[in-house]
């Protein structure tokens, strides 16, 4: 306690220090041992495939086939199969893109920003959240790539990435869509690398365990990707530094990605799109929706795999509070947009916002407001944060709300732009709807494969924040 520090040089005030008891939550409950952690997490991979997994996998696979079918139909027929028409030439594809990219942000946020902020509670959720990021980026990338219709133009050298080509031209680097190409591909790459680097020590554990169990094939498979990791502290030293640097660069990266996504809209002149608060507002929204998705995924996992000691009530509290904070920031931005639309006195701008709230798409607007601004306010109350079922339902509301936010921003502004003669109303086609809902299947398939074959929590990191990991034994003086 404090008395240990009251040596001769310390000021008298320290003698008076007598804190009132208000203990902090522990990160791993029930005082578990290191091997308990290893057994618990590896056990999920080593055990037999549970029946629910097969069922979930089949359902996800079926759902994913919608996306595959939708895409095949799109490529073979043309982009006309989507519901786009003047003036809304861009709707669900970009909505879904921004939605999925936003979902991905919580993963990087948990891994990187919380790592920098030394928020140790990140350890039990960061692996799954990072996986979620990668799969979300995959789902996001489907839409911009396929919305061009002739999809080979999106991948041929020279069209999106600068590469000497027969047309002798270069991509237009003044376009925010081109910035998106770089931002999203950088984001995907760095997320995968960050995730993989985190996996290396755990893959080494699996390598050794499968070898011990006599399963040489799986041992070799995990062993190949473990890169010969042997837990050397000389390695840990470089590894931790590399991890910290990656966290350090992922933080500005994750901010920049949604910032650049917001530039897609904000650099234009369209009423409702051009507003300077878009960058932080999009980032806050992305984190908001990302944490919504983390809760949506982790709460069932926690129940199924009995991870209550690793994902504790404290973790859930923290995530709820982040949702509350970012939801409120998003609410502030909604208010600011509305206010400045009036204050700026641009009639088009003013109309755009009135139209959002009371026009043809008002239903979408009020779903957005309800889910994004009202829903998180419930998390002020401890009783609600402790009700896991309710938290789960509210987290789904958050996801829905954020999808509608993008819909509102994109479609209302396009459907009612400057000239009343070119106003329109957009409805999605069946192909679009199926393609979008199918991406949840794609995501599900990838996530189920992840939880079946890879450690869902970083064992090494969890061990490092357990009380036994303290070299001073928790009582020894420095």
């Amino acid at each position, binding site marked *: 306690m404090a008395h240990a520090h009251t040596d001769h040089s310390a000021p008298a005030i320290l003698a008076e220090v007598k804190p009132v008891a208000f203990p902090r939550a522990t990160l791993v409950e029930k005082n578990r041992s290191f091997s308990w952690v290893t057994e618990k997490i590896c056990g999920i991979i080593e055990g037999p495939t549970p029946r629910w997994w097969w069922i979930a996998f089949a359902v996800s696979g079926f759902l994913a086939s919608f996306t595959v079918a939708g895409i095949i139909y799109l490529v073979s027929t043309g982009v006309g199969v989507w519901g786009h028409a003047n003036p809304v030439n861009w709707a669900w594809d970009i909505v879904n893109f921004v939605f999925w990219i936003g979902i991905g942000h919580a993963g990087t946020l948990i891994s990187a920003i919380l790592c920098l902020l030394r928020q140790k509670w990140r350890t039990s959720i960061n692996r799954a959240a990072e996986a979620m990021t990668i799969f979300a980026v995959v789902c996001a990338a489907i839409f911009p790539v396929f919305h061009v219709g002739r999809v080979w133009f999106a991948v*041929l*050298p020279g069209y999106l990435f600068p*590469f*000497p*080509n*027969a*047309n*002798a*031209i270069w991509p237009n680097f003044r376009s925010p869509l081109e910035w998106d190409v770089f931002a999203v591909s950088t984001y995907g790459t760095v997320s995968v690398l960050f995730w993989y680097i985190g996996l290396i020590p755990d893959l080494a554990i699996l*390598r*050794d365990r499968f*070898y011990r169990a006599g399963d*040489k094939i799986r*041992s*070799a498979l995990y*062993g190949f990707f473990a*890169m*010969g990791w042997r837990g050397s502290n000389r390695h840990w030293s470089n590894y931790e530094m590399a991890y910290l640097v990656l966290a350090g660069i992922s933080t500005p990266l994750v901010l920049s990605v949604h910032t650049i996504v917001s530039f897609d809209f904000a650099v234009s002149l369209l009423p409702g799109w051009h507003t300077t608060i878009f960058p932080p507002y999009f980032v806050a929204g992305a984190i908001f929706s990302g944490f919504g998705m983390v809760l949506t995924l982790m709460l069932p996992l926690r129940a199924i795999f009995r991870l209550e000691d690793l994902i504790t009530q404290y973790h859930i509290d923290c995530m709820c509070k982040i949702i509350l904070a970012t939801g409120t920031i998003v609410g502030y931005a909604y208010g600011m947009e509305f206010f400045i639309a009036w204050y700026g006195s641009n009639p088009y701008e003013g109309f755009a916002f009135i139209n959002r709230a009371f026009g043809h798409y008002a239903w979408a607007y009020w779903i957005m407001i309800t889910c994004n601004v009202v829903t998180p306010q419930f998390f002020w109350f401890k009783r609600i944060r402790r009700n896991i079922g309710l938290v789960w339902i509210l987290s789904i509301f958050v996801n829905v709300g954020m999808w509608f936010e993008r819909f509102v921003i994109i479609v209302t502004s396009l459907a009612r732009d400057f000239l009343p003669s070119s106003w329109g109303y957009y409805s999605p086609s069946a192909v679009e709807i199926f393609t979008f809902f199918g991406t949840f299947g794609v995501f599900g398939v990838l996530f189920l494969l992840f939880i079946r074959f890879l450690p869902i929590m970083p064992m090494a990191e969890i061990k490092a924040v357990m009380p036994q990991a303290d070299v001073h034994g928790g009582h020894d003086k420095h």
Partner: protein
Amino acid sequence: MSNLFPKSANKLPLQILIFIGLTTGIVLAGVTYYATPKYTRVGYAPTQPVPFSHALHAGQLGMDCRYCHSNVEKSGHSNVPTAQTCMNCHNQIKTDSPLLAPVRESYASGNPVPWLRLHQAPDYVYFNHSVHVARGVSCVSCHGQINEMDVVHHAKPLSMGWCLECHRDPAKFVRDPKLVTNLDWKHPGGDAGQLEQGKKFVHDWNIQPPQSCSGCHR
């Protein structure tokens, strides 16, 4: 496990890395070389319904290009001659040649000869022959030495990068418009002479070939 991985396994990652690097390099190089009009289009020489020889007509006989492709100076589209044009001569010479049967048939029926088209700009490219010809871009610049071809083949890639070579620096190519159909003409002063005269033409005629997207993709 080391028992699982022999000592030689330590070299494996480097080998894989080199392999991936080489493969990527080869694929990229391949795409750059093969997936271009220069590779896919140059040399295309289909068999035409009538074995018309440009080498004979334009080369040996010295007929002007514009005798047959009569609209090239006036229209955006350079026409393929009708059977009437052919029959101007061929009602007197080789009137019975079986090779000319499709021409006579066309002349009688009014249905065009089904020539196969070689040089075709995509629909999204706006190309105007008259503008080019009027400002001294010779036929040879785009179609090659047609006057030496028995069977016409695609001589230049007609890719966008290729168009831009001239649009960026027309002085290397423009000549006196009187000489555009003289496919054998080279500037007597060589490259330097061409450049000097070309610069003068570019200046005098205010040639400003567009390089913006909308110049061709309208």
